[in-house]
């Protein structure tokens, strides 16, 4: 699909971002994980058959502007309210994966009349264990090979050869790594305040989890879902931290059943 070729530039307030928007139907805002979009994002390719899919690069990620001083996921949550206002979207389904799921949860606890429902896919963002419990695996301080086995049910062939990519693409990759680390470094990939207030979420919520997720386990996922009033929790077989990439059909099926059901 080459989603990078179909990005449009958009100014939200004074923040320039890249946005991929394809398909027709009910609006879906997809918030990408900390490492950005998959190379040929199979999930988005399926979703656009059913919905008006909006998939922006978060501020600071890819080639989107990094506004000075922004350093928490709160900034991103408020930014996406501006985004929804400016595009005048309503009854929006928010889908957030991993780090994007954290942003989605931050938006949902704040509440907004433009939100219709929410799908969280292996979201980060809360901590439930004691100080020496690792709820969220360390993306940054873990051996690269080991990390791959934590991310994927089947890590084979998932490592992209970066050495031949052009400057523009590599700049996006490096900026994405920096932004992910910047927003999530301390506290690491969670917000203690969010952990306390998930019960404020008022939109219907589906929580999807890869059965083999080694970054944040299905047990963490169940506990996450239990804190959201009325949330449904479903696992996806043969998937790790990114079920939307490893099992795009199964993930899309769940999402469609939730939105249209």
């Amino acid at each position, binding site marked *: 699909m080459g989603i990078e070729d179909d990005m449009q530039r958009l100014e939200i307030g004074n923040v320039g971002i890249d946005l991929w928007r394809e398909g027709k139907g009910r609006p879906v805002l997809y918030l990408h994980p900390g490492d950005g979009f998959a190379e040929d994002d199979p999930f988005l390719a399926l979703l656009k058959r059913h919905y008006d899919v909006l998939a922006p690069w978060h501020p600071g990620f890819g080639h989107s502007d990094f506004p000075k*001083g922004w*350093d928490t996921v709160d900034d991103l949550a408020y930014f996406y309210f501006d985004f929804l206002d400016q595009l005048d979207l309503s009854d929006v389904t928010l889908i957030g994966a991993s780090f994007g799921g954290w942003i989605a949860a931050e938006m949902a606890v704040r509440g907004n009349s433009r939100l219709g429902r929410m799908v969280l896919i292996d979201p980060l963002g809360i901590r439930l264990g004691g100080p020496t419990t690792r709820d969220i695996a360390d993306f*940054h*301080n*873990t*051996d*690269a090979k080991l990390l791959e086995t934590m991310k994927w049910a089947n890590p084979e062939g998932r490592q992209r050869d*970066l*050495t031949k990519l052009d*400057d523009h693409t*590599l*700049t996006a*990759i*490096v*900026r994405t*790594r*920096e*932004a*992910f*680390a*910047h927003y999530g*470094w*301390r506290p*690491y990939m969670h917000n203690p305040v969010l952990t306390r207030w998930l019960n404020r979420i008022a939109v219907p919520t589906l929580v999807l989890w890869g059965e083999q997720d080694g970054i944040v386990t299905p047990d963490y996922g169940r506990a996450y879902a239990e804190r959201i009033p009325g949330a449904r929790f479903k696992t996806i077989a043969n998937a790790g931290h990114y079920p939307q990439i490893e099992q795009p059909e199964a993930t899309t099926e769940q999402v469609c059943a939730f939105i249209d059901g």
Partner: protein
Amino acid sequence: MRVYHFSEMPYPQVWEGRPSLRVNIPNKEYDPVLGADMYERFLDEWVLCDELGLNIMVNEHHATATCVNPACSLPLAILARETKKARLLALGVPIANRPNPVRVAEEMAMIDVISRGRLDMGLVRGSPYEIAPTNARPVGQMDRFWEAHDLVLKALTTRDGPFSWESQNYHYRKVNIWPRPYQDPHPPVWVTATSPSSAPRIADHRHVIATLISGVIAKDLFKAYRDHARAAGWQPTLDRFAYCAVVGVGDTEEEGLRRADQIADYIRTSPIVAKEFASPPGYKKIPAEIATIRAGPNAGNRPLKTPDGRLVDQKTASVTEFIDACSVFAGTPDQVYDQIARFYDLTGGFGHLLMMGQGGNLSHEETVANLTLFSKEVLPRLHELHERPLAMSAD
């Protein structure tokens, strides 16, 4: 020229055959009984410097067997009282990783007072693998460094405090350090650099620019500093420049080389760290990070370079290759003097030589012999460097 003796207070007993000497090497490998003896000997060596006319340099690292000094201020606090003449250089305090820069100012001021004004205060960014033990944010670290620098200096120089400092990084409502420093307005500030692009900002503050083991890079660094200063209308004196090299002196060339070879294990072991800690996101600028990605997953660390352009692998080089790269000065006193003089000319001159006189497995007796011979046979000649025209100007 002022010469400082530097040791990292290493723990080489556990260096052999390990994939990582930093961050994830468990401290069950450290024997505190042996460690107590080692601290004693390293401190003794610095106390000896006071008698030999040498000055003292300490640094700090965290969670590592390469350097068992987690705080510059601790050995300096001891040495401030145990020595009488030596300058005491911290090079340095990684202020961007410290959550509390005001505490740094307090500690530095107290050392300065106890030593009656002998502190040289080095402020450093810190190596990339220092991020993991402190959990400091790597992205924006340089901005935080300069903000912490401004705050430390304001704390040291404010005489009618308290003042407040509230920003995104730091939140203080009453800064008012006691004691204030002995040196007025504050101890000399040193900043390390590895890239010429860092030099202008250091020059703007007229701080000492220091570089460690970097060989010919020092030439470009010092030139960038001098050019920037001249463009701003001032001529930096030699005491604005510092270079750190391994130094091994012997009665014979063989003895000097052998000592330097042992100390040079500092250079060889320095990059041994698990990959995931070696380059946190945002530590490098984007073009440098892209170059690293292009070099592929098996790319090594950046090699040292000789003045004639040959590359020297930091992990495996022989002592003579390190000499070629100007990272080591070694041999008889005459040879060491000649090597220093050549490098001095190559870089346009510098006022401080930071002599790594101990490193790796070099024993106490050998270290004492190294420092003593240097102070008797090389040190007295170094003033000659300033008294003759440069053989080859860096400019």
